[in-house]
């Protein structure tokens, strides 16, 4: 141990940052040595005698110090071994402390299985692992420096989402730029904190100006204040970023009842709904192919008012269609009965004074605001949620394609990266309909038109396999259904090891992040969504100047053209 040389300098003897000092002076305890394994199956590490198996946990990081490289690894299994199987039939009397001390770690010992994820060479840059350390290399717990070498520091595009397991002194910073450029999935069984996790990610994207969000807020979780499971109130995104978030609502009454502020109401005209929008409800409203065909026919014959005329149920109209088209009157009546549900949804009106789609696109593109669309009581109606989400997304996507194509060659004219958040995603991305829905199209086309998805779901196995394969970053809380676990891990290298980790996450505040936004799969204890988090966002948000916005404002019409 090195002692300070200046006896007058108290800061040297008693540093202000005591934890950093302790980190520097205390040796990192060795866990054990590599005794076997392979690149594909992971390494086997025999634990040292003094190392308690109970102090280790799957998902924790360890570093193997090879001859020329450090190998950053994740523990994915822990096992008990012995040098002689006979000890199992005649175990020693461990109540005797002497025998306990002798046998533990010698005749009976622990091993851990670790998956090498990255290697760090002399240049301190993490690289994909393509080899393994040799026999008997030392294995240590990862320290702050190791984690920082891999996950970098928080900066303009990196956002702190939590801490690695058992290493609270450091933080995991995900690359938000990479997060938003491909679709993101947030998975986890019910009650594991998906909404909180999503809120943290969305807050990061907004705070770091990495894109705008369109959130189809099924349960009114994201816009304004909500009450958490432990009874405390937590802030919504609008309260954290008042100038960057707009809340729209489909249900004014619900917003008032909840005392939740909103910026304006959204109404959708029945005349604006097209047969393609109805087709997305095929599964949830049990619409047959004949009914979908009937909808197209009616639209062709009656024009934009086809839904209104069908709902009026004029007998002459129905008979006229049945006589002059191949559609059976029974089919028309069945379609009519199903669409009668629309009459119970107050946000659907005959005509609307303004185009909701245009307003949202204006908010997203021109004002660079994130939009939270609250469903109020309609969130309980899956049909309403799917109809509105599809209706708006289809049209916004079309506008985005148009804007991106117009902006070809001029990056400054491109619309901002848009992240569309949908819940109960398996209802939109069911294998039967995923190819036809706008969400399936967006998921597949990736970053081509600056629109990506953030899908929140508790049944990832219900999502189309092709769509799942296109999800860039997967943030997964606890899952215990085998099919769901398989779906999430499909296509991830080293999935066998991660399976154990995934099924043993805590039920709250723990998630595994893997994919495009992180250099390697990482188990995080997610940040608490509390006052400290709000304060950190203000710091991240307070002083930054949005260069893109400034450039666009200068280049477009409007009152802010002049430099003041």
């Amino acid at each position, binding site marked *: 141990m090195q002692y300070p040389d200046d006896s007058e300098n108290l800061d040297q003897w008693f540093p202000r940052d005591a934890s950093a000092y302790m980190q520097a002076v205390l040796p990192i305890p060795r866990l054990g040595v590599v005794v076997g394994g392979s690149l594909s199956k992971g390494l086997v590490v025999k634990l040292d005698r003094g190392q308690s198996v109970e102090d280790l946990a799957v998902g924790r990081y360890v570093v193997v110090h090879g001859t020329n490289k450090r190998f950053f690894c994740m523990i994915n299994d822990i096992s008990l071994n012995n040098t*002689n199987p*006979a000890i199992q039939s005649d175990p020693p009397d461990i109540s005797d402390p*002497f025998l306990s*001390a*002798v*046998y533990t*770690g010698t*005749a009976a010992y622990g091993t851990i299985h670790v998956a090498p994820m990255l290697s760090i060479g002399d240049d301190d840059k993490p690289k994909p692992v393509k080899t393994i350390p040799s026999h008997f290399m030392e294995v240590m717990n990862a320290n702050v420096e190791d984690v920082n070498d891999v996950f970098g520091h928080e900066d303009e595009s990196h956002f702190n989402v939590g801490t690695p397991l058992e290493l609270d002194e450091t933080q995991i910073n995900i690359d938000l730029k990479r997060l938003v450029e491909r679709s993101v999935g947030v998975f986890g069984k019910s009650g594991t904190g998906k909404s909180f996790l999503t809120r943290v990610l969305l807050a990061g994207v907004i705070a770091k100006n990495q894109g705008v969000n369109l959130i189809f807020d099924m349960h009114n979780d994201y816009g304004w204040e909500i009450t958490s499971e432990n009874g405390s109130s937590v802030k919504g995104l609008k309260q954290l970023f008042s100038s960057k978030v707009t809340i729209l609502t489909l249900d004014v009454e619900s917003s008032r009842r909840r005392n939740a502020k909103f910026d304006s109401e959204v109404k959708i005209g029945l005349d604006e709904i097209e047969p393609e929008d109805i087709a997305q409800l095929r599964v949830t409203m049990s619409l047959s192919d004949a009914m979908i065909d009937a909808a197209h026919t009616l639209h062709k014959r009656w024009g934009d008012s086809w839904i209104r005329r069908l709902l009026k149920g004029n007998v002459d109209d129905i008979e006229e269609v049945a006589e002059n088209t191949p559609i059976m009157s029974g089919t028309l009546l069945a379609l009519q009965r199903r669409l009668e549900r629309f009459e119970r949804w107050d946000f659907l009106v005959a005509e609307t004074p303004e185009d909701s789609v245009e307003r949202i696109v204006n908010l997203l593109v021109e004002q660079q605001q994130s939009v939270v669309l609250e469903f109020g009581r309609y969130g309980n109606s899956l049909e309403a949620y799917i109809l509105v989400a599809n209706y708006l997304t289809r049209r916004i996507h079309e506008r985005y394609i148009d804007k991106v194509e117009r902006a070809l060659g001029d990056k400054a004219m491109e619309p901002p990266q848009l992240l569309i958040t949908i819940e109960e995603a398996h209802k939109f991305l069911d294998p039967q309909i995923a190819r036809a829905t706008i969400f399936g199209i967006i998921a597949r086309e990736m970053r081509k038109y600056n629109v990506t998805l953030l899908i929140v779901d508790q049944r990832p196995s219900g999502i189309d396999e092709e769509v799942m394969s296109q999800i860039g970053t997967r943030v997964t809380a606890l899952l215990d259904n085998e099919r769901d676990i398989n779906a999430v891990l499909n296509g991830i290298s080293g999935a066998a090891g991660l399976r154990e980790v995934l099924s043993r996450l805590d039920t709250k505040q723990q998630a595994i992040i893997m994919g495009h936004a992180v250099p390697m799969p990482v188990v995080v204890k997610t940040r608490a969504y509390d006052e400290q988090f709000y304060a950190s966002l203000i710091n991240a948000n307070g002083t930054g100047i949005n260069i893109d916005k400034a450039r666009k404002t200068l280049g477009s019409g409007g009152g802010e053209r002049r430099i003041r």
Partner: protein
Amino acid sequence: MVSTQQEIVGRILRASTKGFTCGTSSRQVDTRHDFGAFVKVPIANDGDCCVIGLIYAVEIKDDQLVNELVMADSVNPNVLLDQRENRMVPVEIDVLNVGYGYRDANGAVINGFHSLPPRPPMSLTDVELCSIYEVFTFTQRYDFFRTVINASDVPSDDLLAAALRYASQAYPENQRYEFMVHCGQHLARMLANDLKRLSHVLALIRPA
């Protein structure tokens, strides 16, 4: 009893590189000749290099007169005492070689090798008890365990246990338990394939 000064155990009667037998007068026999004691003796033609061994047998041989006296009805106590102390048959002390080392400037045998010596000691060379320091330094490593465990015609388990109990006396009192635990752990690795034997040896060395 670990020696704090040079003490003669006996003189060499017979020797090989595997071990040796030394003899001494019966009236000299005391704690220096304990079973499991560490002893040293210079090897042939090299005063600096000493064999280190463990006493594994102390044998008091009979002779014709002793046989007769055993069967006599009554014997004068002075005759018995005379026969015990002044008989012409030496007490034989058998030693198993477990290592060798070289004397330092103070005459202490250090830098020990836990293997058999290059040459045996010569006849009639004095065999000395190892000092505390020599026992302490020699038992910093455990490689000599295997020599003891594998020795034939030697009560190896009991010898090793006795040697370790003997050696533990060379350690400060607060380090003795730790020393025995380390020895036990080393034995646990060596005897992993023979758990019954391991269990027996551990029972023998287990601190009270």
